């Protein structure tokens, strides 16, 4: 049950999504990936993709215009 942080601050779409997909691929089932983003478009496409995969998703607003998307690889 590892937790990994992926820094995508300052990066525009589709970079955060691609990085997230690559990072998840490397992870084991049960691991948690925390993606830091500050582009609103990534705030939509990263969680949408993760939910589509059937993963658990939570978005936390950590600052003004800064979010952490928490993804648990459930399968």
């Amino acid at each position, binding site marked *: *049950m590892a*937790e990994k942080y992926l820094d995508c601050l300052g990066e525009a779409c589709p970079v955060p999504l691609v990085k997230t997909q690559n990072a998840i691929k490397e992870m084991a089932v*049960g691991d*948690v990936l925390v993606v830091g983003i500050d582009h609103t478009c990534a705030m*939509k496409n990263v*969680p949408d993709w993760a*939910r589509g995969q059937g993963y*658990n*998703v*939570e*978005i*936390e*607003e950590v600052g003004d215009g800064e979010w952490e998307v*928490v993804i*648990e690889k459930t399968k």
Partner: protein
Amino acid sequence: MEKRIEEYDVVVIGGGAGGMTAALYAGRARLKTLLLEKSLIGGLATYTSEIENYPGFPEGIDGTELMKLFDKQFRKFGVNVKLTDCKGVERLEDGRWCVSTFRTNYYAKAVVISTGGRNRLTGAPGEENYLDKGISFCATCDAARYTGKKVLIIGSGDAAIEEGTFLTRFCSEVWVSVVHDEGHVDANQVAAEKAFKNEKMHFIWNTSVDSFEGDDMLKRVNLKNLKTGEIIPVDVDGCFLFIGYLPNTQLFEGLVNLDSRGYVITNEEMETNQPGIFAAGDVRAKVLRQVATAVGDGAVAGSMAERYISDLDTIHDDILSKDRVIVFYYNASEDNDRAVLLKLETYGKEHGIEIKPVDIYKSDKVMRILSGAHLSAYLYKEGKKVASASLKENFDLSSIESAL
């Protein structure tokens, strides 16, 4: 992963118009409030491009814009927001509620269910494969995509007929599958007459969907004639389903009372059958589902949650956490009640025992939660009810006195 525990006064489940309003009222009452939303704030209203019947915006306003204003306003009152799915609600031993998400259990004194609903599907084979790939639920959102194309509408209610008429402005042909006999639709008369006169609209009577077909995208809908059983293939570029709406209440089955269609049953104070659980907005069993009615529900739910929490605090601080106290339920607007209270307070002074008068004029919640009765006195020792006496007929405290 270890689950975290966070404590709140109020947790609102669902970030549509009703939920945001409930959170606004709770937050403004200085309650520690959390709003949970599974995708994006705004709810169903964000699917409407023009809202013309929400008062205060005489020129009409885009649904997403209006919800952005709601969002800005409720956050002003210190409400926390978590964008994640609610996984369940369970009662804790101390009477609070545990609202769980995949990482955190939120312990709340009061919960507002404002989870809204979703569009109903036909359940026909192939449907799953073409959701958002040719099957759509919102003409306003997707009309432009079908400019010059042929679409099929399933259903004949207000939404089906009105949205269908709207689609004729974009599409070359709009076909409508109706379960009823020729000439009968469920929509209002005005909309129906307009649709019957529209040259681009064609009706296929007595039919429902048999299956959906296509490759990557939807190409054909096979309709079935309900009288003859005949299959009618209709080649289309898109298909709109307007066959109703289902409340998002699967999570709450067995927790709160639902009506036969799955909507949460509440009273006028937005209370469900569970103490401390309220409901607001489209998820409630009610007659009109609009932003305007969701806002009304949310305001009531938010302030009733506040009142409930203050009652809980009374119960805990003034009754259950005392070594010994006599609780007396009276109506402060009645002369007789006040006279009995006066006698009881004199008795308390003489015997050195604290009296806790609970006025039921404004709210009888505390009395109901503790299953008390009007004009009765109850002796509590270390959180337990040990004796009672009805002072309605005569002032006789012997049963309490023997337990002191």
